[in-house]
């Protein structure tokens, strides 16, 4: 197991180097100039050049990258251009809000979706199966900006049960978490349904029935654990994606998380800030993938042997 984790960590470093390089180069290729955004419109050429030199943007890209890597090695990720604070500090300030949001969204999605998907599979082709399938299709198709705004209109504006936006009280998290959860819920339920159906047809399920086990044991012991394996991967990947990309939902609900920070940083062409956000997203993604692999290996022992 230790060897397995070590191997995965080594792979992660390569992913990190790749992600940082691509983000760095892309930012500098796309049109726009942070210096112009920072200075007032009537700044002189001299002032602009001075600013550029100060930020090191006058150097060739490869030299800028080497400087950037050198700084990263000593854990200096640069200061935000627009806010003046260290970028990592800003990220750490915004991270808890995103973690909280994603955590509750995934909890909502998983707790509802897994039993729902299994239920639909066991009742395949019944009325309830069709209902679940239609709801899942709807859930995956509804755009989150529309759903978010409709929820605000209905529950916050019309009925006044929940706040429209804000952060700090438990009631603030319900709407954004639900908005975020709907898509995940639909996705997980559909995957769970199809993987349960696959497993139900396998030989060892027939063996379990031939042993005379109660159907409940067959489903919840023999089918469940095997059907869960592809679903775990999906949940992991989706969680990673949400941590870096709950952007729209955070924006609609003014949720002070990383998504909100990302939108602001891109608007300000805040190079160091965006680079650090990419690195953090990559790290989050890598950690989640590693966790998924470990959970995988715990659920299914064949994986350690094979790798």
């Amino acid at each position, binding site marked *: 197991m230790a060897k397995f984790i070590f191997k995965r960590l080594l792979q992660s470093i390569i992913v990190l180097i790749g992600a940082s390089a691509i983000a760095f180069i892309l930012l500098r290729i796309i049109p726009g100039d942070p210096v112009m955004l920072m200075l007032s419109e009537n700044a002189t050429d001299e002032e602009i050049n001075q600013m550029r030199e100060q930020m090191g943007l006058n150097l060739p890209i490869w030299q800028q990258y080497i400087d950037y890597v050198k700084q990263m090695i000593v854990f200096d990720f640069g200061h935000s251009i627009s806010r003046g604070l260290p970028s990592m500090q800003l990220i750490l300030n915004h991270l808890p809000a995103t973690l909280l949001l994603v955590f509750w969204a995934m909890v909502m999605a998983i707790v509802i979706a897994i039993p729902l998907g299994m239920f639909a599979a066991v009742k395949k082709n019944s009325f309830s199966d069709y209902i679940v399938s239609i709801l899942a299709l709807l859930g995956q198709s509804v755009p989150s900006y529309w759903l978010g705004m409709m929820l605000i209109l209905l529950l916050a504006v019309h009925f006044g049960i929940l706040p429209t936006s804000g952060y700090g009280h438990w009631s603030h998290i319900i709407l954004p978490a639900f908005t975020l959860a709907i898509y995940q819920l639909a996705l997980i339920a559909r995957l769970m349904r199809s993987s349960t159906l696959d497993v139900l047809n396998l030989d060892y399920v027939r063996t379990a029935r031939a042993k005379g*086990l109660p159907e409940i044991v067959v489903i919840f012991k023999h089918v469940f654990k095997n059907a869960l394996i592809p679903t775990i991967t999906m949940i992991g990947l989706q969680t990673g994606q949400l941590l870096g990309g709950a952007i729209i939902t955070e924006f609609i609900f003014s949720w002070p998380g990383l998504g909100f920070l990302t939108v602001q940083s891109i608007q300000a062409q805040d190079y160091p800030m965006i680079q650090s956000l990419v690195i953090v997203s990559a790290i989050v993604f890598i950690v989640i993938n590693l966790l998924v692999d470990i959970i995988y290996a715990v659920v299914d022992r064949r994986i350690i042997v094979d790798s």
Partner: protein
Amino acid sequence: MGSSPLLQVKELSVHFRTDRGIVRAVERASFDVQRGETVCIVGESGSGKSVTSLSIMGLLPKGIGEIKEGEILLNGENLVQKTNKEMRRLRGNDISMIFQEPMTSLNPVYTIGDQIAESFRYHQGIGKRAALERAIESLRRVGIPLPEERAFQYPHQLSGGMRQRVMIAMALTCNPELLIADEPTTALDVTIQAQVLEMMKELKEAFNMSILFITHDLGVVADMADRVVVMYAGIVVEEARVEEIFQRPLHPYTLGLLEAMPSLNSRGKRLRTIQGTLPNPLQKPNGCRFHPRCPFATDKCRLEEPSLENVGSDERKVACWHYDQLEEVI
């Protein structure tokens, strides 16, 4: 015969609903299994032999396969009329089954000890630890070395032969009266096959059980069977004691199967095959099912379907209009 048979299958018909229509997988099949006896059901793939065994187990795929007619009597009780719950109590307890694919018939995410212990726990209501000890005991009984260690291993850590032994150990947990073995050795290589068959014979004696053995391998039949039931396209075409099947087959299909088997005398010669293929299960031929492939077929065979009739003794049955001609040929 004296005592009543352990298992009686009477006029069993099983239909499968498919996208292209109803498939009559088994039609009016009848046969008995006596106590302590091994009966082999022989036939090509698609002859209905596996469907018959799944019907006895009550494991036909739900909503697709259905017993249309007939009775399956175990100790005189009709299994067709039992509820799901009653069948569940019987499965793994009075009747057990082992399957063709030992590689995929065990759950990859649980240890083999756990999978065997399950039967003990649900049928005999004993605790987890005691069940595991019994599971280790049953692994020892099927000749698995170091059962205390093997019990904590996962199926992928065992060879095919070992896994089939595990399946057998699992099937025998509750001392069943009837063991249904659906091609249990087909997926194994020949030496392992011989070992597993030998072990099954020993266990059959030790447990005093009956075996319903499903196979298409006549070598296995010769080794295992007391009696043989030959099925073709969903119907029973011949039934006899094993010696008679090999010495004096009465149905042209049985003869064809025997001739298609390589022997020491046939070395260097081309093997005989049965002409043609199994009929389309959706449109079986009129008259005798076998007539399109039968060298002895006459107009009568094309129009009228022969029924399974006694020939001489109760133990000898054949469904053929011209079985007496066949006797002359041989």
